[in-house]
């Protein structure tokens, strides 16, 4: 079975290899503030230099909080059939929080403080038959087993 070609929903957000994603952003060269996705300037008001360089982030973080979406997003996302999905706000070791889709986890299994890792998730299939993907979070392998 041949695998569909994968294309990112948006260029520049993340890189991926198989099912492992790495987020790409920026880091201030003078005050070390992190930004996702990439920015043009540092916005820390205490930072005078404001110059940023490309940066990547840890591939793991902890659930700050989550929700479970029971309604489909407006077009252009035509999910047929629509399956309710989780969205998590994740605390990253860099002191930032990132919002993303949750995959590989049921509502009853997600917990605040749980360890997650970055993966990819298929959003939809485009007209050319490609899988359009985005980054997503899934339970970190060694901590996911718990209840299952």
């Amino acid at each position, binding site marked *: 079975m041949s695998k569909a070609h994968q294309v990112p929903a948006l*260029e520049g957000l993340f890189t991926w290899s198989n099912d492992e994603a790495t987020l790409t952003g920026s880091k201030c060269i003078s005050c070390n503030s992190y930004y996702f996705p990439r920015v043009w300037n540092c916005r820390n008001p205490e930072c005078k230099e404001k110059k940023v360089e490309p940066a990547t982030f840890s591939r793991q973080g902890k659930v700050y909080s989550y929700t*479970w979406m029971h309604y489909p997003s407006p077009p252009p996302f035509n999910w047929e059939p629509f399956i309710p999905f989780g969205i998590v706000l994740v605390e990253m070791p860099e002191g*930032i929080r990132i*919002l993303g889709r949750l995959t590989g986890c049921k509502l009853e299994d997600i917990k605040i403080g749980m360890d997650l890792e970055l993966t990819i998730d298929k*959003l939809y299939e485009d007209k050319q038959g490609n899988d359009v993907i985005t980054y997503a979070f899934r339970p970190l392998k060694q901590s996911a087993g718990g209840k299952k």
Partner: protein
Amino acid sequence: MRDVYVLGAGAHPWGKFQEKPLMQLAIEACNNAMADASLEWSDIQTVVSCSSHFSGGWGWGQQGPELLKAIHENGMPVYNIVDACAVGGEAVNVAQLLIASGQYDILMVIAAEKPPEGMLPLTHTDAERTIDNIDYLRWVSATAANPIWWGIEARRRMEEYGTTEITYAKASELMHRNASLNPLSRFRKVFTVEEILNSAMVCDPLRVYELCAVSDGAAALILCSEEEARKRTTKPILLAGTGVATPQFGDLWPRVPYIFTAAKKPGPYLSEIVLATERAYAMAGIGTEDIDFLELQDNSSWHVVAWPEVMGFLEPGQGDWMLEHGEFEINGKLPINPSGGFLSYGEATTAQGIIQVCDLYWQLRGQAQTKERQIEKANVGLSVSLGLGGYAATIILKK
């Protein structure tokens, strides 16, 4: 700088008015405000008008020049303020400065809006579909519609303070019970807590009756100088304080539509609300202890219990107790949204900050539309609104 007073308030009922054009909603709100102030169009020196700007285009709301072209084309100056849900409060702030500076003596602040149906949609053109467009980014990265941010907050609060789904349902129950006394509001049915808990789940733990819908709506205010107020009314209401703010770096509060919060060191949570409110207090020369009631922007039932804490009225986690013990009710210690708020009005985003100030004004004048809705001790009222992307406005009126 001169003191500024509210001389009149008016609104069009909020709801869905498919047969009626936006302009007519705006004009009726203006006419009601002018009737309340016993004024005519020829008395109005300028109009401050509210609209929003999302991802290009004009967004929603009513532009001032169009309004004058439709009802009173006399060449007067207009100021179009463009923002999101906080624009009404921001327009009141700007209007106050226009009078305080001595430039004008009487003016109108107006907002009218017919937003699109359902969850606020993607409005981007192909050219806007880039990584630098924060409102496009949230859809293709996290597929995140507005209410998910509130669901995330509501869930976090349950973990931190033990808030339950029943508490959130009770907050919504109170808003609709208050709205049942407000003929301008849209969702005026009194629900039981059970009915709310049985309504469809949208973004767990928040249900459809715990989230604000979108509505058509319009509201208008007449502001004037002290000299005009003395001449024209025996019940002057002082625009005691206005404050406007944007977020502060380090604030980790997740705000629509950002998928990311940055912090070098953690700063104040919901900083734009905190800063706008501090600025309004500083101008009014008062503090939380002087406020008799609040109109706050309840996009969800989470806001009703959480925001009074963020704004310094309560200790963190105390909102649940206040709600459970009836202290947020119309005759409680700290009445929250005697109007029924936006869970009941629904959102006409650009007009929200104006209808809030109308509601403060009606309470302070003893003009609440029904006797049961009138707060007995209403001397100072405060309203607060928050706009998509991070804008906040706080308004304080004083009898």
